[in-house]
């Protein structure tokens, strides 16, 4: 017999479906019923089951390759989604955690330490949202305080001293918005990281593995390559926050999610990130080992490339990469009172530095 009855289908891994995944659940239910009736009645439904399984696979492929931005947010925030420690367990050998900012305390929202990936020795830095309630509370749900960013920088300096490349795994709703966070200079801590990361003299690879929330993400997000997992998102503000400010109601979060263009696909088009890392069908949480394998391959391949580059060249390129981020043009007449000027000007956009070709300039694709 090709099929055996099981209470939960292997495809769902016992993980509850999100609202937009419900159509899949119906097909799975159908398969379960067929299997059950096969056992009870002894009739052979295997042909039918095969057909429905085919349908299920087709439906899943279709669904997950076309997630809209709001669905992507649900995936990125999925409670079962692999976190930094999961990826470290699955792809890093001999992880040596190094704690504390040597100044105030050890912020559990960001974990740092030595580890081996492929045959490379690296420094790993990543947000940790926490798995159970206790850990989530301890870690402030992965929202770091200033000492988290200072700890990250301290470990980056350590990596630089011993020539170890740096891998940053980003997964946070944002830096912690609290009284003590402000008192201890959260803005200052993030700013300092943004100033120091461009001149750390070892390769830096950053990957958004879940939520890339604003300054809290960018605070460990400056590097030679920045990638994002297929169902992660990276945004200047949460869709809820954006809706509350610009639409005056958090209920418009879905609308804001569409407007913000923060999925991997959009960010690639806008040339804000370098790569999108494929996830297993149904998302990283349905097959963490495969997700970790893709991430590992990306990190190892990228670091091998970067290690071949001379440090001075690496830093020049890192600066150039940051420097070209933006989308603007020089209007010919710049009339402040003519609203049409910007629209019309897009077509005759003049490049800012005449000696650089248009392609290298920051001409993000108007979508």
């Amino acid at each position, binding site marked *: 017999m090709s099929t055996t009855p099981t209470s939960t289908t292997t495809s769902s891994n016992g993980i509850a479906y999100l609202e937009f995944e419900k159509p899949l659940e119906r097909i799975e239910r159908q398969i379960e019923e067929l299997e059950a009736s096969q056992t009870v009645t002894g009739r052979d439904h295997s042909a039918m089951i095969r057909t429905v399984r085919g349908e299920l696979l087709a439906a899943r492929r279709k669904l997950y390759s076309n997630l809209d931005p709001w669905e992507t947010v649900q995936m990125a925030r999925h409670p079962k989604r692999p976190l930094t420690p999961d990826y470290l367990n699955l792809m890093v050998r001999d992880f040596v955690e190094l704690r504390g900012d040597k100044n105030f305390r050890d912020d559990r929202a960001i974990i740092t330490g030595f580890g081996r990936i492929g045959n490379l020795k690296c420094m790993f830095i990543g947000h940790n949202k926490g798995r159970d309630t206790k850990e989530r509370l301890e870690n402030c749900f992965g929202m770091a305080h200033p000492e988290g960013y200072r700890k990250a920088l301290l470990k980056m300096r350590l990596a630089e001293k011993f020539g170890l490349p740096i891998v940053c795994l980003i997964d946070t709703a944002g*830096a*912690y*918005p*609290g*009284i003590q*966070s*402000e*008192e201890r200079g959260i*803005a*200052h801590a993030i*700013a*300092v990281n*943004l*100033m*120091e990361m*461009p*001149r750390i003299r070892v390769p830096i690879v950053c990957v958004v593995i879940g939520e890339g929330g*604003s*300054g809290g993400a*960018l605070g460990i*997000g*400056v590097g030679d390559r920045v990638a994002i997992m297929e169902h992660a998102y*990276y*945004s*200047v503000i949460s869709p809820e*926050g954006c809706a509350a400010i*610009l*639409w005056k109601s958090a209920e418009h979060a879905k609308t804001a999610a569409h*407007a*913000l*263009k*923060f999925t991997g696909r959009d960010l690639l088009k*806008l040339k*804000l990130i370098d790569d999108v890392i494929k996830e297993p069908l149904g998302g990283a949480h349905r097959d963490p080992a495969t997700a970790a394998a893709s991430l590992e391959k990306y990190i190892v391949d990228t670091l091998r490339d970067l290690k071949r580059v001379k440090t001075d060249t690496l830093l020049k390129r890192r*600066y150039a990469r*940051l*420097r070209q*981020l*933006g*989308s*603007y*043009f*020089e*209007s*010919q007449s710049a009339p*402040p009172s*003519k*609203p049409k000027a*910007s*629209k019309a*000007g*897009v077509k005759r*956009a003049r490049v*800012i530095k005449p000696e650089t070709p248009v392609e290298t300039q*920051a*001409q*993000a*694709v*108007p*979508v």
Partner: protein
Amino acid sequence: MAKVEVPEGLWLRCQGCSKMIFRKVLEENLLVCPECSYHYRVDARTRVGQLTDPGTFEEFNADLVSTNPLNWTDSIPYAKRMAAAQEKTGLTEAVLTGRAYIKGRSIILAVMDPFFVMGSMGSVVGEKVAAAIERATDENLPAVILTCSGGARMQEGLISLMQMAKTSAAIARHDTQKGLYITVMTDPTTAGVAASFAFLGDVIIAEPKAMIGFAGPRVIWNTVKAELPEGFQTAEFMQEHGYIDRIVPRADLRNEIARIIDYCGK
């Protein structure tokens, strides 16, 4: 014409002390209340006039405008919002950059405008600030930036967030070349601008009572669900916690900047 946050008129009621003030007196006093020292917000052009030696400001990149890369529309289209801001302020964007002199000392200056879409930072602000800092590095001049901003401009999405990294990288380069960088935080300096070039000054100055912080007070309140301390997120609060070198009243800014430049060489 100075734009204060009060209706036009010959007289106005001070927002700080509620006394009636003659507008002309307020303007002559650099938009600081002569009674209670309340510092009104100052538009970028007026600020340049207050700060620099007369006639010395030479603007850079005056014509840069955003491409509206996300083709954004919220309650109103971004293009319309920009046009309205340009109409209201007479500026093309939320920052003015250029070369100027302060008490005879040559500097590269950037001044943000609180009235242009809340001084928010999109592609153009990021580019103008980064270009100005590069200019300061290349010409071996001090960079002085007067910040005021609600943060990154949401209407340009992640591109705006990346301006934080871009401007900070330019400052790193300036710092490596031993360039001097002075920031003057004015009301309000928050979020993405606070968490990038505003807090990276070699010397950080703030105007009295300016609001300075990262997260908005409402967001914080929603997280902690508790009363925020008295004077939370003001210049004085940030100085007490060790993040501001000096709080300087507006009338003394020219002097203070010149003094610091003299100490730091260049």
